[in-house]
């Protein structure tokens, strides 16, 4: 974000904060009379709209702030595994045939692409590549959509990279021990991976994608 824009955004946030404080003061006064006039509700609505707008605009900054701090709720789910796999499964390979029970059409479609090798390796933006090099992460595979990537290195680590007004890579890996042969983006917070054990894994994490996600963030700690 350019300096001018940052300054403007800071100004907007300061203004929003001041108006919120003023509304609180007016509400406190209304408490003393028991009379809550229409303009209080109107100002509340206006500020709620302003809040949405500001949170949307500040999402990259918020994500920047929380990239390393927040528990990203990183989850690895085994979707498909060969016969004999003991863990929970959505589907099952029977020989070379993929059992379809429990898998949605979209999941099936993506899995077939993985299987067939159609999933293309994502092209990483230049500045992300630079960022990875700076961090000395040797990336051999990545899956994402251009705003985020799950980056796989040769040690089995999976890193989260986000474009938060400049590419950032989360300091600690989200996952470890994942040796991926192929990976494909599933949603804006998950990828499907075909690992060396011929399992299809879903790797997902929590992301701050909407103002509502941002509002739910803890402030302290």
């Amino acid at each position, binding site marked *: 974000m350019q300096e001018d824009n940052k300054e403007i955004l800071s100004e907007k946030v300061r203004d929003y904060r001041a108006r919120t404080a003023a509304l609180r003061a007016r509400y406190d006064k209304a408490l003393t009379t028991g009379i809550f006039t229409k303009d209080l509700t109107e100002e509340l609505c206006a500020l709620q709209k302003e809040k949405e707008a500001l949170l949307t605009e*500040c999402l990259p900054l918020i994500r920047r702030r929380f990239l390393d701090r927040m528990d990203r709720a990183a989850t690895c789910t085994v979707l498909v595994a060969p016969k004999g796999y003991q863990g929970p499964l959505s589907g099952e390979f029977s020989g070379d045939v993929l059992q379809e029970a429990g898998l949605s059409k979209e999941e099936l479609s993506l899995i077939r692409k993985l299987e067939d090798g159609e999933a293309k390796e994502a092209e990483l933006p230049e500045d992300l590549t630079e960022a990875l090099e700076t961090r000395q992460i040797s990336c051999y595979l990545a899956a994402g959509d251009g705003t985020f990537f799950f980056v796989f290195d040769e040690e089995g680590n999976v890193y989260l990279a986000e474009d938060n007004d400049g590419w950032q890579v989360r300091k600690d890996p989200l996952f470890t021990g994942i040796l991926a042969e192929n990976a494909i983006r599933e949603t804006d917070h998950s990828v499907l991976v075909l690992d060396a054990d011929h399992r299809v894994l879903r790797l997902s994490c929590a992301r701050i994608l909407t103002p509502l996600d941002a509002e739910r963030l803890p402030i302290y700690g």
Partner: protein
Amino acid sequence: MPAGHTAGTFSYRNNIKHMRRLSKLEQTRRALERQQAGTKTEQQNNSKDTQDPEDPVLQSYLAYVKDRRTAAKKELEGLELQEAYETYLLKAEQEKSRRTSVNGEKRSTRQSRAHALKLQEIREKRQALAERDPDFFYVSNEKKIRDALHAEREGKLVDVPYLVRAKEQVFASLDAGIPVYLVGHLGSGKTQLAIECAEEYMARRLLQKELTDRMKEYQGDDPYAFFCSIYPKVRDEVKKQELHPYFIAGSHNLTAEDMFFEKTLKLSHASGKDSDREQLQTLIEGFVSFARENEAIMKDMTKDQQLELLLAGWKTFSNLYIAENSGYGTTVEKIEKEVLLALREGKPVIIDEINTIAMANLIALNDILQHHAGQTAYVTGVGSITIAEGFCLIGTGNLSTGTVSYEGTNVLNPAFQSRFTTIVYNYVPQEETGDLNRSEHPERNELFHLLLLHLADKDGTLSLPEPEQSLPALWHLAQMARVSEDIFEGRGSVDTKDGDVPVLNEAVLSVRGLIHVLDHWNFGEEEDLSMALWNGFLSSVTSADDRNLLLSLAVRYGFFTDAGGWHVEARKRGSAPLSFDEIRTMPYRHHLLPLETLSTEDLVHLLFGEGPKRTEIQKDLGDTILFDDGTQKDLDQAQSLDEGIRELEQSADILSDAVRDDARG
């Protein structure tokens, strides 16, 4: 606490759910007052919907209200003193202008207008305070109740607004030197009003005089402070004075002489040993005095001539003395009567039922009526007499209308009546429709107020059997009385079933009648209100049509119900009067209900409404008490707003952190 956050941000403020609602605190406070008032009756402690009396927030709130009321009382007293001071100055100024004016009437001056303006400001301030400050509203109305109860105990009229306005009209006229003629219907209280106005008129004059005399002695530079120090004592001294006007009961055979003087034969001496000796002594002293006066003439006479002269002189002297005092001496004496006494002494005189006196006799008052104090009026048989300061005349009379004719009354000669200010004083106002809980202007239901004040205890509390039932019943009684008064005055708007306009010729449920009914009722000790209405009023109504109509009215207002063992059928005009046996369907059995005591605060709100809401609270309770109007909707709205603002505050923190972190890089 993280840096950048201060106490009072959303995380640290009292959640609205934990705040105490003001409506609940008020409810508890009033319940506690009621409990305290009810210790003398069989009242139970009803602690439903109230808070724990030991709750520290409640205790704090109670102490706060107590302090506020003490302060409000002081403020009221201060305003009353200011008002008394400005009234004193205004009257002094008006008196000064009256003495120096050409025609002896007061004139408006710059100074008197300044005092009048100041008085207006004080009254407006008082009114504004009562509309804004709940504690001032309470203390000022509580004082009105105490004054009313004091008046009740003294047998005086209660100062409801209708009465106060009438009194002000009377005083304005008397102050201007114009006599007053109070007219109205029976039982309205005209005579009592005339007496009280006359007494108050005398008291006001005496108070003004005493204050003037004392203020003259003051030489300092803060006359207001001095006034404040003397006024309460002077006022109390004047109150203790027995000030009574002269009173003449009018009748058709009252003559002019009866009003001014009467001639009487007075026995100067009565028969008896002592009076005989006294008479002889007087005779001898008289003769000796006569002889001494003529000593010079007798000196030139011989002794025989002197003796002969003395004997002849004694004979003549004693004969003349006896002739003059024949039969032990009766003399003709003129005894001054009320009007003359009032004129000479400067006191008010009331002529009650003035319109029963023959016009030929009333004319004797003409010259007095058109002159003021200080001027000379001519009285037939007496001569010129100077009207003393303080004299005034109030006449009262019943007002015959198209429907009501008072036997023995005349219509006053218009020329005679024009010398008076005629003030119509009838029945006090009362809403005739609607119910007690939905009255928009409770202060206008003056008749209902009179009933409650008549029933109130001297400490300002009111004990009633089951108030939830008694109060509406009393309200309906007041409404019924007012409608009967309207009909009696010829303003009946209640149509009978036949479409006739109702008429009452002789009977009306006036205040006098209502008091009888209430005294019979005696708080439901032996009879309910319907029975009291019958025994205390309706049974003594002799006119059949009047009784039948009044019974129908009573049924319309909820009395004499079928469920209560009554049945009142509507009867046409000209029918026989309904008797007790005809309207009672079963033997009467009374159920005695327990008395509950309403506090003085309850009485204030019954008579004057709820008053203004509390909008301030002491600082240390500010975060603990939620100002509400007692409804859940209000609370929900407040809660919703609070939650909304909390979310905004939380977002504001997130956004501020985001831009700040970015600034740090």
